[in-house]
């Protein structure tokens, strides 16, 4: 249990202070809007900080069953997108999805369920590939394959 609002307000105050120097060289018309937003953000953050120091409100956060899943899925997502540019949309998506299916269910990591999963994924990716690339003419990345 932590003072979640206080942490949130400190984060937004740091954001406002860190971004302010960038606005110094903006023209009058280009700078009026971001400057106003940053000032309001800093003031509101300060108000929240004072309010939560005077009257703390303890709340649970980041209380999850599998915290590592968040990290792995986020990193896998970034790698998947990077692979789209290298291997092409279809191949990268099949690999990305297959990895996540394997990772998310420890009980079904045997050959047979994984082969079924691979088949389902190939059909799903293939369907959307044809739908977008051939029907809607969206040029999906080809990479070194297709």
């Amino acid at each position: 249990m932590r003072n979640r609002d206080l942490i949130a307000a400190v984060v937004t105050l740091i954001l406002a202070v860190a971004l302010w120097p960038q606005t110094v060289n903006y023209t009058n018309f280009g700078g009026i809007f971001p400057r106003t937003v940053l000032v309001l953000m800093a003031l509101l953050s300060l108000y929240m900080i004072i309010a939560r120091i005077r009257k703390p409100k303890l709340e649970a956060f980041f209380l999850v069953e599998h915290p590592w899943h968040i990290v792995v899925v986020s990193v896998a997502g970034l790698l998947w997108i990077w692979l789209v540019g290298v291997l092409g949309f279809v191949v990268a998506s099949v690999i990305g999805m297959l990895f996540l299916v394997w990772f998310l269910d420890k009980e079904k990591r045997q050959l047979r369920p994984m082969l079924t999963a691979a088949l389902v994924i190939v059909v799903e990716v293939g369907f959307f590939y044809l739908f977008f690339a051939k029907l809607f003419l969206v040029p999906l990345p080809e990479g070194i394959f297709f």
Partner: protein
Amino acid sequence: MDLITSSFVTVFSPGNLLLMLAAIVGGLVAGALPGFTATMAVALLVPFTFTMDPTTGLIVLGAIYMSAIYGGSFSAILINTPGTPSSIGTTFDGYPMAKKGEGEKAITTATISSVIGGLVGVVALLFLSPPLAQIALKFGPPEYFWIAIFGLTIISSLSSGSLAKGFLGGLIGLLLSAIGIAPIGGDIRFTFGRPELQGGIPLVVALIGFFTIPEILSMVAHGHKAHAAASDETGYKKRKGVFWQTAREVFAQPGNLIRSSILGTIIGILPGAGGNIANLVAYNETKRVSKHPEKFGTGIIDGVIATESSNNATVGGGLIPLLTLGVPGTPVDAVIFGALMLQGLNPGPQLFTQNADIVYSFILSLFVATLLMAPIGILGGRWLNRFVTKVSLRYLAPSILFLAILGSYAIDNSLPEVFMMLIFGVIAYVLRELGFDAGPIVLGLILGPLAEQGLVQSMLMGTALAQPWLILFTRPISIVLIIMSLVSAAWPIVVAYRKRRKAGAQAEVKEYAQS
């Protein structure tokens, strides 16, 4: 009379009806796919309409437009991802309904509301076009600035916890909207030297990131519990009579339906403001006048009725300035504007006199398409609901991530934008854990450009005055909008005060009774 008869004959010809049905199905699919907006669906179809006669081409475009706006509700309800920006508000109550095992009820509510909203918009298009278009012309930069401010007061409804945190979320959204080249001044802002940020944050990319990725991360972090729809307790159960029961509940809220549809029509008429703003304004207004505002966000049909009736009403509303003045109100209307020009038609007052047969056939076809949307949407939605609720988490989470990647790429065919989507998503997850709702942030992102342009252009307009900012307070429509903004912002404080007073009075009575 001849005009009406000939319009009926044209619209109800077998060929046109068949094409309309195909366009409705196509629009529903496009709308339901995250990242595939109504604008993209209509734009993609324009080349296919070249070879058609003008009336048929417009019938097809109108049908796909109407159904794509409605289709966005499917993914909003089932996977908490607004298929189009017009369905952002539908996630607030639609998804909680799906989590409670009421996905079919939510989809039925969205269908009926979309049909009613669509019909109201089309009726306004048919009967009120000239006067409404004239009012819209009176809106200048100061009025648009105040519309954006009025829109920002909605934050009080969208924030589930602390109001200050809701406004901080809105400011984060406004800050995100300032990334890129300044609309006036030309400054390159907050890009950190990355050229891909110069164009600003694409709204749909941010929407997918802010709504989809936190949901995926939450699913995988909490295991099967987060995907309640897939659990045995609340998962899909075949229920009889859901449609009629839901229809009765929806029609028991005529005020909500009418108010939201009218709001959608009016907002649709204003150039620059479309379904993405209308659905949030309607949600806010419905919550504000509701007898049980605390239940909003927990999965009640009131919110879904408001958002879905208003966003479909913007279709007819948006076409009013387009057809009567030649001013496209939304990006989709701009695409239709192009399609009209390509067919040799000039949008504007003369369209109603020189090509009346085409215009009235188009309006009638919108009416018919809106009605046809209902059976197709109910059947399609029911099937989708069964499908999503039966898919296990190990397939669902990767499949949603796959659709998010595909959708964010399809916007501009840009891989950096896909990275942007995922990074936004992870940030949105952290912000959610810190207590920031996605709603206010996205609202800030949507209204930021409108507010900034309104503010800066007003300052330019006001250079003749002693103080340029005075122009914001001197025009009659601006004053009305200022009053509306003040009332909307003060409303939650009034409600909280009333609640406190009531609770205090009850406590006093209790104390007195005990003594």
